[in-house]
């Protein structure tokens, strides 16, 4: 039993431990906090990479927490997709954290910075846990941690909006987890198992005996994860929460948190429910249509927003729709597109929120109308915004195109032409609200008396890195695509 063997658990645990230490450390040596968290991120990243190496060497494997085998113990499963998610979580978490280092100084009181770090670590750790766990109840626990942490990094900025938004978020997410817990109970009742794999094995028999339980559980699960991941009609909490939060929080919430719930839903739908069950019950259809509605309405709502961050938040609703569409289409290529969009959207939405943060910090403006000429005073930042916007629209050379490409191809392969049209149409809608901002930002003169406050280079650097990444994943997506293709082939047999 080498240390290496424990990496799956360690990734989660070091974040959790870090979260505990952080407030204390902050009292003791506040300057050490940030490096420590960075170090943890790097460590986790290294471990994730090590996992990847091991995966390549030996294929998927399991890790039993405390050496308790299922059905008693908690099991972590390590396969390509999960490691992909962990890499995104930790990697982009690191990226956003770098941005947060400077941004927080402007948005938060100094005393709470330590707490913020703690929450951040908690969030990343719990998300990694959600990505890796193979146990229904464990998933619930991580969900709750994640829920609290994500509410908390909103409410840590103690403005009224934040408090109200996070309260709303909290209540709704508690209801969501409540639903999920109910679903677990239902499933446990008929199968007596909590482990994904074991449930999967026990389900066919149980489904014959107690169909109602399972059906109710399915509905509850969709609602639960739909609420958490802001699937269309359940998105109501998101705009307030993401818009009012401090910018790094918005970035991490929009970029990562909603994705991990979508990923968990995918995990449950594909690894807990047998394929026959998915065919019998139109789960995919429900998800697909809700995603479609989300894609369209998210964009339409975004169009009428006046607040920049709120607009970005609504845009997230549309974008998460793509991910769900990938899941809903139930087709390997579409799934590929959906998964690639997880990465893409995390990158671009994270970057866009960072840009919004920089704009608000430098000029104090956050209304879309007031952004005229901002490109003259913050050129690099607005170029990044342009790239992000282009990626949202799906201009070639940006990542957005690639994910749309695969989604559309998947829709075609699944013989669902309608959804290709939806994708194309939504690109147009995206264009309608992103482009005016870009145009106005660069072509109208800047009207502002008050000087633009200087922006930290680190923040701009983080944004630039994001921009480069967006372009890179648009220009050279092949490695990721190949990876995902192999991963999906391994897990669902493409």
């Amino acid at each position, binding site marked *: 039993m080498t240390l290496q063997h424990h990496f799956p658990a360690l990734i989660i645990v070091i974040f959790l431990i870090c979260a505990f230490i952080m407030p204390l450390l902050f009292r003791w040596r506040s300057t050490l906090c940030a490096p420590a968290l960075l170090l943890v991120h790097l460590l986790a990243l290294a471990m994730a990479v090590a996992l990847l190496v091991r995966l390549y060497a030996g294929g998927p494997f399991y890790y039993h927490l405390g050496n308790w085998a299922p059905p008693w113990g908690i099991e972590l499963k390590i396969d390509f997709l999960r490691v992909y998610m962990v890499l995104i979580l930790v990697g982009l978490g690191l990226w956003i954290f770098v941005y947060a280092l400077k941004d927080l100084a402007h948005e938060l009181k100094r005393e709470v910075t330590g707490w913020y770090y703690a929450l951040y670590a908690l969030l990343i750790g719990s998300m990694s846990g959600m990505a890796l766990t193979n146990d229904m109840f464990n998933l619930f626990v991580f969900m709750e941690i994640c829920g609290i942490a994500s509410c908390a990094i909103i409410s840590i900025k103690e403005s009224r909006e934040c408090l109200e938004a996070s309260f709303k978020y909290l209540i709704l997410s508690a209801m969501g987890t409540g639903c999920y817990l109910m679903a677990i109970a239902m499933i446990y009742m008929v199968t007596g198992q909590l482990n994904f794999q074991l449930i999967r094995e026990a389900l066919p028999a149980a489904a014959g005996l107690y169909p109602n339980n399972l059906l109710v559980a399915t509905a509850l699960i969709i609602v639960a994860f739909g609420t958490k991941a802001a699937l269309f009609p359940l998105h109501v909490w998101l705009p307030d929460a993401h818009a009012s939060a401090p910018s790094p929080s918005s970035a991490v919430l929009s970029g990562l948190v909603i994705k991990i719930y979508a990923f968990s839903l995918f995990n449950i739908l594909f690894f807990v429910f047998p394929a026959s069950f998915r065919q019998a019950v139109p789960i995919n259809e429900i998800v697909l249509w809700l995603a479609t509605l989300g894609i369209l309405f998210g964009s339409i709502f975004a169009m009428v927003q006046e607040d920049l961050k709120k607009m970005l938040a609504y845009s997230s609703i549309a974008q998460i729709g793509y991910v769900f569409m990938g899941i809903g289409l139930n087709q390997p290529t579409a799934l590929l597109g959906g998964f690639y969009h997880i990465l893409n959207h995390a990158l671009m939405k994270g970057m866009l929120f960072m840009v919004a943060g920089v704009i608000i910090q430098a000029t104090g403006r956050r209304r879309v109308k007031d952004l005229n000429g901002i490109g003259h005073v913050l050129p690099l930042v607005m170029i990044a915004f342009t790239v992000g916007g282009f990626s949202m629209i799906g201009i070639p050379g940006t990542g957005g195109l690639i994910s749309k490409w695969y989604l*559309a191809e998947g829709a075609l392969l699944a013989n669902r032409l309608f959804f290709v049209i939806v994708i194309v149409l939504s690109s147009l809608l995206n264009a309608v609200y992103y482009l005016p901002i870009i145009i106005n930002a660069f072509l109208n003169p800047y009207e502002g008396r008050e000087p633009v406050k200087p922006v930290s280079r680190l923040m701009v650097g983080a944004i630039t890195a994001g921009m480069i990444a967006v372009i890179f994943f648009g220009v050279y997506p092949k490695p990721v695509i190949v990876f995902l293709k192999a991963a999906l082939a391994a897990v669902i047999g493409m």
Partner: protein
Amino acid sequence: MNEAAASAVPVFAFLFPILMTPVIMFAGRRSGRLRNALALATTVVTFLAVISLYPRIIGGEVIQFTFFEILPELHISFRVDLLSFCLAALSAFIWVLCTIYSIDYMAREHAGSRYYPVLIFTLGACLGIFMAGDFFTLFIFFELMSLIAYILVIHEETPAALKAGYKYLIMTIIGGLALFFGIIITFELGGTVSLSGGPLVQETSLLAFLAFISFLIGFGMKAGIFPLHVWLPDAHPVAPSPASALLSGIMLKTGAYGLLRVIFHVFSVELVKSGGWDKIMGVIAVITILLGSAVALTQDDIKRRLAYSSIGQMGYILLGMSILNENTLIGDIFHIFTHAMIKSTLFLAAGAIIWKTGKRLISEMPGIGRQMPFTLGCFSLAALAMIGIPPLNGFLSKWTLGLGALEAGMPFYVLILLVSSLLNALYYLPIIVPAFFGGLESDHEHGFDIKEATPRMLVPVAILALGTLIFGLLPSNIPFDLSRLTASYLLRGGPF
């Protein structure tokens, strides 16, 4: 010669301008002169690079090069065949002239250090489109060009320009999306989007038809065909004149080029005909021709009139595609050359007039020909070519197109061509006739001093105008021969 080395020149040709863009941008901060020189040098070098391919291309070689696989089955790849070469050489040539022209023209305008990099970058993107080896690469460069060209459109930054630019942008994006749609269906049906194989789609189906319509919308949007033309008359006039010349002269052609590629590489002539899609194009083409010509008649702004005229002329090209026999194809490709030269001349000459006198309205222009005889002389030559007067090149393309239409047994199309020619006459002649002869002599007994634009603006205009004559009259007419070769290459897979 291995593949990479063989493809060094074409790759260099389109990459060079793109790489030079930042250099020019930074040079622009130092000195305008350096910037101009660099821009000009870039275009010249690019042009030479493209031209240097001539012996190889004419020898029947198809240069192919795959950069890397961007996605499985999707590559960034390049492929230079006759058709690519035709358009690439044409655009590089026009670009050189427009850049020369720009030097003086833009000296008065603002934001030159934005203009030149964008200009050069657009060249690179344009060449990228023409040299793309598959539809995906083509699509990427197409979008790049469209978006970058937006900056050219709104260069003046007047409210009108911004409005037109926004319209352009939205329409372009709609077009791009349609294109995306089409490409994805093609990919789905054919398994690849490469240009190097045979037709990607073998049989008609609803999907294939949808793909065709999407391509028609996508490329037609750029080409300004009938119901999708609305951006064009707004966008072209507001751009600076050299940019208008490029927009009308070259960038419209990217749409035509794309459609040609779609007809021959995605589908096949037989497929298009068996599906009855040529009829669709025919109807659209007829409407486009008549509409463009008719509305041009009512415009008083000279650049707007030219822009509408462009719509009509693109209709000719579409008409040729709808008939699809050898002669119309020759006519099509030759008309691409023809119209590029003519319309560039016209826009550049109109630009010179505006630059020198500030007059934009045709009703203000009587007598201007005596003031700027040289400019107006070139303008007249080009206008006559547009009407189709022999021995100018416009005649030749009309002749070939008409011949093809008759061969296909469609004299109706010829009638349309003729009516449109008459309309061309009706709207071009009232520009040039009063320009030279209008305004009573007695009114300006001494009023007409020669006030020409600078030589650097006149020389490109003159070269282009001369081109309309030379490429109509002279026996060794390289564009025409190229068109002929290309047409047979497209139809039969090779002239050799």
